[in-house]
């Protein structure tokens, strides 16, 4: 299925959309299709928003951001996603609501969502200021010990979009490399799209690879290079220069606007 058709089929105004994939395998090509689709009022879910959500937020697609760590991973930690910053501090191009968690909390939320449970639990929120600002955090008491633990509500996005190395012709998907909640995001979501580097006749087992059977995926689209400028283990490394270059583009509303026009009008996928 062509990527643009798949995105148009799956993403609707107001949807909760999760583009997952840790610091590698980020579905940039699909994200740019979302930008072209111009949906409104999306709730964007992602542990590490990264450049990809800086772009979607800057493009005005989002009403809300659900996340656990937002920065440009190549540049370091503070204020490095300028479109997010602009939306949060100046409500430009639109106000952005946030719902934030820790990585462990987001992980527990995806696991709960993928497992048909309404919540997950963990240790780590007690004593922090996060619960007072985040409605999806509560506590639960152990029925055996009486101990109080942190509870987080399940994530069940309307759509999950992820990128993988390959799929076979039946649509079974193989992911490779450490990290990421790609599978959980797909399994937790109502609809899902996996973009892949290549489509092969048959998947062969490789170390550190995980598989998602076709019946758990709504659509697969062939998108070589679809995770660039992030890395796709076995295909390409992260393009650190592109990450640095984004800082200049993103820092300035006008320059960002030109970039956005390039994506929208010309369909050129720079960065």
């Amino acid at each position, binding site marked *: 299925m062509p990527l643009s058709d798949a995105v148009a089929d799956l993403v609707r105004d107001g949807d909760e959309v999760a583009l997952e994939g840790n610091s590698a395998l980020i579905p940039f090509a699909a994200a740019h299709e979302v930008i072209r689709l111009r949906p409104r009022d999306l709730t964007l879910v992602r542990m590490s928003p990264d450049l990809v959500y800086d772009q979607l937020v800057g493009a005005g697609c989002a009403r809300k951001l659900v996340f656990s760590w937002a920065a440009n991973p190549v540049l370091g930690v503070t204020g490095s996603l300028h479109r997010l910053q602009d939306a949060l501090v100046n409500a430009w191009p639109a106000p952005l609501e946030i719902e934030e968690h*820790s990585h462990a909390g987001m992980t527990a939320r995806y696991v709960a969502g993928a497992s048909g449970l309404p919540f997950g639990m963990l240790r780590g929120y007690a004593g922090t200021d*996060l619960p007072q600002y985040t409605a999806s955090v509560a506590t639960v008491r152990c029925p055996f010990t009486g101990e109080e633990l942190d509870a987080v509500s399940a994530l069940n996005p309307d759509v999950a979009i992820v990128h993988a190395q390959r799929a076979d012709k039946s649509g079974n998907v193989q992911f490779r490399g450490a990290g990421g909640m790609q599978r959980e995001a797909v399994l937790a979501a109502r609809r899902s799209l996996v973009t892949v580097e290549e489509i092969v006749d048959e998947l062969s087992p490789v170390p550190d690879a*995980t598989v998602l059977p076709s019946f758990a995926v709504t659509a697969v689209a062939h998108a070589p290079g679809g995770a660039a400028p992030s890395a796709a283990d076995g295909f390409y490394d992260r393009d650190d220069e592109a990450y640095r270059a984004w800082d200049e583009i993103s820092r300035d509303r006008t320059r960002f606007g030109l970039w956005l026009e390039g994506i929208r009008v010309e369909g050129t996928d720079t960065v």
Partner: protein
Amino acid sequence: MTTLDRPTTDAGSWTSDEMLAVAAARTVRAGQACFAGAGLPARAAELARRLHAPDLLLVHDDGRLGELGAVSLPELFGYWIQSGRVDVGLLSAAQIDVFGNLNTTVLGDYAEPDLRLPGSGSAPEIAASCREVVVVMRHRLPAFVERVDFVTSVGFGAGPLDRAMLGLRGGGPRQVITDLGVLEPDPDSAELRLTAVHPGVRVEQVRAETGWPLEVSEDLVVTDAPTPHELAALRSVMTGSGS
């Protein structure tokens, strides 16, 4: 992020950031399992690995356990971090307060921030569950505050009993390593006090960069200067990692 290291007031051939990295690396022991946040903590851990802890097992937040392979994120956060199996967590922050609480979330008001910071990442669970935490950050007045604007990761809360009351099973901050010296929690009050200054640093200088009335340990020591061996290793790390 460009790092502008100030030369130290000492005439030595090392910068205050180099002293910081060396002092932080020394806190890591051979054979430990270690989680290190991005930036200064990661640099210190890598330095320790090259110096005295070649068998340091670095737990990464993408699930890699050293060179041994990777586990899924649910396993990482459940089996390895939350279980208390990580010996030491090296963390940094935009703000730290007198009780070692860390802020990486927001400067100013949460709803109307002056500056939005990256957020929690894995820091809260590291701070909650690692056997001990070592904080690694530059010692500047805006960062060393009496009370952080937002508690992202719990140090000692508001006193020595808070961690137990909150059910946090890790030991909390053992040391705060800065480019000026070392702070450690007072066992009675859990407040951070100065236990070491780096060579050439005066206590008044540290106090001037600390936003609370800083207590000084009766046993205040001066940190050993970086050895040529340590400096050589550090410089190879910094070249290698590009930081």
